[in-house]
């Protein structure tokens, strides 16, 4: 019984804890059999019926106590049987709604009592007692493992010799007989059902598709699979559902009914729970009756369908026969052997067959599941993999500082991805993906190509040169771009042979082999295999061949293979970079090859292939260095002067890739490459334009380069390229170049002249992020100019910019905040920003996890606060906003700290807000930062301190938190901005006498030195003079007074002096 229940019964999958039996004909049949067995038990085996179960069978019953009659003690809500066990416990105990039954006799009687509802009761019993045999006979008896079960039971039973055991044995045997019977029975049942298979379902769906569409005559409006992925066994259902026999899910929209979500399974067709909110998921639960096939189902569900169907029935069936005369017979054949097996064999073997059959079916179905998971995982991987990739690129920019850099990383990544989508899996983890994918192939039906290729590989292995060449040429005729062929070559061991051929000195074989390798190495798996088989060193050696066509092919293959890190590393390690660079030198044609061989290509072609390979290789940092060391840059510069587009693209591509390195940028400048880049920008080829723009983008970090671009007239071309927005990659590159170029003021003027600003504003909407980052970056630079700010506002650029503040792209946010900060300098623009709630959005970006975004947002907030009318009010309106800002002072990123200090400076201008941030502990936090030697931070920190002094006893507090002494040392800095800010802060702090003493004690600052320092700054000079006077006076007085105690009067006196002088300085500045 146990086996039958677990194997044959169809359990629903929905619940984990309490699974229920589905109401299928098969289950019903099984239950009926069980009931018959139990009901007749009491008559057939009266002795065994008295046997008390080891554990009671418990379940919830709907039966009313009143239904029980004689032989039972009936209470209000309880029923006890009169029959009791040795200990006097009743063998049936009902306490509504729970029932416990402890022998077959009571079980039989119970079913008799239940009458009409006995099926339901039996079902409930089976559901609640998933392992009835264990409960009846004890756990030992449940170790019934298919064949050995009987033996096991006999073993158990023969050990004990008392009568109870004899009974037990008998029951065990009876149960196993029942089990067998059930299995046979269900098998018969299964064989009676019209079991659908993937092919027939597919045919049905295809057929219906042909008759679907708009219009009255069609049978359906639409029919489609929920999943595009088809497993090798023809199913589309996920593997864990395939185990339940489900084949696929279809969305059908009939003319007269809502869209139906239908499950096609081996048992038939039924309505499922439909699509769930969770995208792509389906509620697999069965929601309706099972129909024998899709057409029957739809006829039942949709009147229109059956109407139109009957109209077309004739045509339909005719067509069906015509269309698939080949498809039908195999279906029948498939079914036939099963039937035969059922009718033909004896009972015992039959059972085994069934089990094995089921088993193999199960394993078969399980297998593709791995690959299915792999595909899902693969997708996840790719999205996951982007992050490390991004990280990798970002790390470098971070090193060199400026917050705008990630934009480049973004762009670089973009370009890398585009050229070699799979490159992103350069990390080792992605290699895990290979294995599950292999499995699927092994399982799939092998296409005819596979056998043909296998034959050819045989000739490669066992043939002489002539046979090899023929086989290679023939292999080349296969569609090598197709994955089946690529993998077939690998699977039959072709890769090894192809690579080994490169080691021989048969030129023709090498050429043929490389021609194939070149094609199949477009496949990422094959690339890895080639590297694993040691293909790269041989190919690198082939680069030395005197045959140019061999060189070309080897270089091209390397270009394909070197798309992931390990491969690139291998190329370098085997000296490939030097050899590839040597290929670029197409001028020197060696005398040895004065005579042209038949198989030879032109020098230019060799150089092109070399550049192509270098392009692939140049994605690794070390390779870039190696290319430079091998003298690649002058050669690339020379090739850049040619006019062949297919030569220029890899050359510029390599340059663009390498230009991420400082060394290269210097060399590029020295080799006067910019000029040629600008020239090629004028080419008609979009890819070339893109790479040129990209290279300019990389190089234009450098001021001189930016000037060169302008001098060679590149800006106009860049501006004009903005008009074509179809090619997003190119647009990204062009806007990137414009961004970097616009760092120079002169260039910005030019851009305005070319009306680029207006176009850029137009690009703020409906563009991919790669483009947006650059557009916004460019606008940020342009808006440093007053006229451009006005222009951007007038073109309506501010609303889209503010809209971009809600994005998630880090690089984009950095640029957007910067651009908005630039715009906010204009009070009129500020009004728009404020109206669009831009300040709140900026403020919320302070919570962004990326420090660069935080810093950039804080910077942008400064002009916003400065230029808003009721800034104080506005700032207060942000709930928790001030606390957020103060807490950012705990950051350990210098840029964040500096920007937050600047923001605090502006916030502190409002007295109320100053009070709030003082409460939030701004003073100790600022004081803690004082020991820094970062000039930028020093400057803004000093400013913040000077502004925060204006509240309460903050001045004194700064002194207490030991902020004063370090501040004095800031005066040693070389940055005049730091001096100015520090002087201001010290001036404020010196209003407290203790601080004065501290300043004096840290008196490394001599008055004369100060005067020298501030010669040019009238205001500072005044302040410093003033406060130095104060300091000097206070110290003098202090030395005269009792040591350690600050006379109260002095304090007051000094303050009055300071106030006077401060007033004086204000007058001076206003004059």
């Amino acid at each position, binding site marked *: 019984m146990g086996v039958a229940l677990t194997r044959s019964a169809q359990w629903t999958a929905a619940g984990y804890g309490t699974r229920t039996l589905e109401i299928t004909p098969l289950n019903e049949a099984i239950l009926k059999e069980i009931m018959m067995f139990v009901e007749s038990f009491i008559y057939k085996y009266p002795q065994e019926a008295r046997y008390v179960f080891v554990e009671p069978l418990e379940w919830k019953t709907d039966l009313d106590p009143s239904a029980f009659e004689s032989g039972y003690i009936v209470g209000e809500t309880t029923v006890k049987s009169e029959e009791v066990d040795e200990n006097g416990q009743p063998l049936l105990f009902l306490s509504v709604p729970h029932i416990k039954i402890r022998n077959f006799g009571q079980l039989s009687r119970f079913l008799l009592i239940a009458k009409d509802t006995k099926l339901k009761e039996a079902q409930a019993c089976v559901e609640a007692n998933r392992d009835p045999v264990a409960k009846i006979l004890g756990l030992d008896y449940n170790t019934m493992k298919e064949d050995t079960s009987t033996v096991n039971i006999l073993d158990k039973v023969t050990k004990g010799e008392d009568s109870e055991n004899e009974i037990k044995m008998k029951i065990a045997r009876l149960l196993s007989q029942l089990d067998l019977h059930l299995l046979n029975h269900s098998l018969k049942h299964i064989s009676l059902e019209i079991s659908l298979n993937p092919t027939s379902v597919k045919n049905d769906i295809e057929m219906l598709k042909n008759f679907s569409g708009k219009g009255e005559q069609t049978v359906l409006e639409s029919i489609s699979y929920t999943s595009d992925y088809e497993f090798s066994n023809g199913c589309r259902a996920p593997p864990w559902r395939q185990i339940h026999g489900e084949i696929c899910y279809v969305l059908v929209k009939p003319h007269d009914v809502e869209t139906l979500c239908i499950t096609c399974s081996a048992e038939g067709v039924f309505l499922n729970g439909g699509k769930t909110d969770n995208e792509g998921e389906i509620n697999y639960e069965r929601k309706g009756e099972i129909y024998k096939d899709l057409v029957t189902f739809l006829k039942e569900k949709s009147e229109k369908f059956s109407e139109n169907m009957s109209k077309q029935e004739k045509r339909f069936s005719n067509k069906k026969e015509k269309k698939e005369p080949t498809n039908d017979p195999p279906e029948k054949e498939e079914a036939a052997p099963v039937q035969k097996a059922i009718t033909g064999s004896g009972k015992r073997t039959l059972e085994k067959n069934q089990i094995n059959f089921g088993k193999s079916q199960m394993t078969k179905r399980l297998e593709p599941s791995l690959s299915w998971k792999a595909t899902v995982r693969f997708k996840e991987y790719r999205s996951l993999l982007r992050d490390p990739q991004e990280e990798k690129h970002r790390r470098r920019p971070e090193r060199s500082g400026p917050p705008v850099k990630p934009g480049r990383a973004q762009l670089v990544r973009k370009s890398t991805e585009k050229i070699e989508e799979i490159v992103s899996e350069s990390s080792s983890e992605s290699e895990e993906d290979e294995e599950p994918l292999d499995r699927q192939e092994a399982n799939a039906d092998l296409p005819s190509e596979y056998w043909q290729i296998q034959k050819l590989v045989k000739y490669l*292995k066992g043939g002489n040169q*002539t046979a090899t*060449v023929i086989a290679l040429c023939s292999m080349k005729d296969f569609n090598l771009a197709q994955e089946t062929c690529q993998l077939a070559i690998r699977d039959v061991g072709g890769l090894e042979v192809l690579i080994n*051929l490169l*080691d021989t000195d048969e030129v023709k074989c090498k*050429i043929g082999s490389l021609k194939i390798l070149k094609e199949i190495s477009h496949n990422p798996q094959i690339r890895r295999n080639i590297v694993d088989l040691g293909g790269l060193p041989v190919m690198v050696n082939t680069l030395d061949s005197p045959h140019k066509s061999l060189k070309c092919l080897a270089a091209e293959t390397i270009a394909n293979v070197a798309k992931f890190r390990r491969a690139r590393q291998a190329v370098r390690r085997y000296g490939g970079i030097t050899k590839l660079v040597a290929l670029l030198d197409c001028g020197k044609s060696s005398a040895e090859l004065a005579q042209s061989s038949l198989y030879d290509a032109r020098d230019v072609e060799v150089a092109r292939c070399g550049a192509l390979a270098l392009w692939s290789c140049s994605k690794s940092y070390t390779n870039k260095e190696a290319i430079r060391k091998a003298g690649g840059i002058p050669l690339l510069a020379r090739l850049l002067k040619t006019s062949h587009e297919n030569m220029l693209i890899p050359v510029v591509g390599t340059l663009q890739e390498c230009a991420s390195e400082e060394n290269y940028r210097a060399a590029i400048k020295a080799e006067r490459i910019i000029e040629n880049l600008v020239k090629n920008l004028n080419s008609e080829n979009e890819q070339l334009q893109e790479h040129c723009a990209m290279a300019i983008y990389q190089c234009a970090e450098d001021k001189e380069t930016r000037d060169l671009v302008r001098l060679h007239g590149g800006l106009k071309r860049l501006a004009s390229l903005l008009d074509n927005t179809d090619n997003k990659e190119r647009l990204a590159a062009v806007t990137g170049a414009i961004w970097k170029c616009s760092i120079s003021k002169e260039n910005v003027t030019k851009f305005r002249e070319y009306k680029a600003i207006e176009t850029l504003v137009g690009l703020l909407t409906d563009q991919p992020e790669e483009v947006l980052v650059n557009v916004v970056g460019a606008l940020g630079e342009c808006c440093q100019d007053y006229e451009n700010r006005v222009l951007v506002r007038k073109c309506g650029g501010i609303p889209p910019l503010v809209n971009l503040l809600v994005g998630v792209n880090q690089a984009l946010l950095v640029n957007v905040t910067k651009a908005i900060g630039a715009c906010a300098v204009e009070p009129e623009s500020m009004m728009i920003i404020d109206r669009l709630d831009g300040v709140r959005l900026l403020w919320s970006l302070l919570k962004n996890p990326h420090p660069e975004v935080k810093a950039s947002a804080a910077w942008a907030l400064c002009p916003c606060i400065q230029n808003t009318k009721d800034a104080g009010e506005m700032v207060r309106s942000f709930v928790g906003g001030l606390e957020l800002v103060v807490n950012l002072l705990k950051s350990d990123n210098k840029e964040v700290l500096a920007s937050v200090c600047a923001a605090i400076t502006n916030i502190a201008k409002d007295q109320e807000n100053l009070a709030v941030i003082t409460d939030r502990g701004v003073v100790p936090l600022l004081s803690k930062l004082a020991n820094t030697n970062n000039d930028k931070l020093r400057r803004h920190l000093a400013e913040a301190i000077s502004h925060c002094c204006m509240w309460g006893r903050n001045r004194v507090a700064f002194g207490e938190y030991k902020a004063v002494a370090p501040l004095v040392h800031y005066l040693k800095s070389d940055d005049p901005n730091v001096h100015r800010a520090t002087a201001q802060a010290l001036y404020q702090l010196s209003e407290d006498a203790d601080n004065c003493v501290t300043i004096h004690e840290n008196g490394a600052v001599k008055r004369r030195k100060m005067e020298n320092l501030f010669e040019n700054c009238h205001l500072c000079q005044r302040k410093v003079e003033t406060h130095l006077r104060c300091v000097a006076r206070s110290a003098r007085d202090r030395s005269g007074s009792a040591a350690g105690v600050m006379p109260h009067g002095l304090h007051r006196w000094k303050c009055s002096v300071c106030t006077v002088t401060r007033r004086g300085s204000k007058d001076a500045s206003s004059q």
Partner: protein
Amino acid sequence: MNYGISDNPRHVGLELGYLRTLQCVEATLDMDQKTLKKLVESISNTVKNFKKSEVECLIRLFHSLVERANVRLNNLGLDRNAFRAILHSVFGMTDDMLMNRVFFVFDKDHDNCINVKEWVKGLSVFLRGTFEEKLKFCFEVYYLNGDGYISREEIFDMLKNSLHQQSSEEENDEGIKELVDITLKKMDYDNDGKISFADFEKAVREERLLLEAFGPCLPEAKNCIDFEALAFRHILNSSF
């Protein structure tokens, strides 16, 4: 390790040695200058790939080869064996059958002997032949019975030694047959079961590797260079 290619015994030392051991060509040439001039003149008219001085070198070389090969006979030309010896040792060919076939193609007048004109003409294709010339040459080598087609049987003949490691002859024949089928599938564009010159040309133009589809019948580039370097060494030397 077997790389799937029959080892082609190459005796570099021998082939170069062979040419070097030829006695100094000028000394042994018993032909007066006038006759030589005339001969050079007439050959140069038909063979465009060589300069006159080169033709002269080749004529001298031919005579010294003939002299060396068959002292007993009249100096008519190179017979099959002598020519095969040259093909083998100088141009590194190994397949007897193909060498015979090359001989027959060189031997335009079918007198079983290569005379000086045939020698120079043949070498011009060998060493400096254009693609079309080589195409024609190879096709001629491969079709022997003269009907202008390479038949299935001929292909079978030419390829029958192209497999090794087969356990039995039967298996081998089976393998060759399949290989022939593959070849015909690839090259027989008009599906008439044999390869015409048009078929051959089309296939080779599409894939140059198929030029020597049925066995090597042209010298490898390296051998050509070596040969030229030696044969024309006097010119090269004098030009410096």
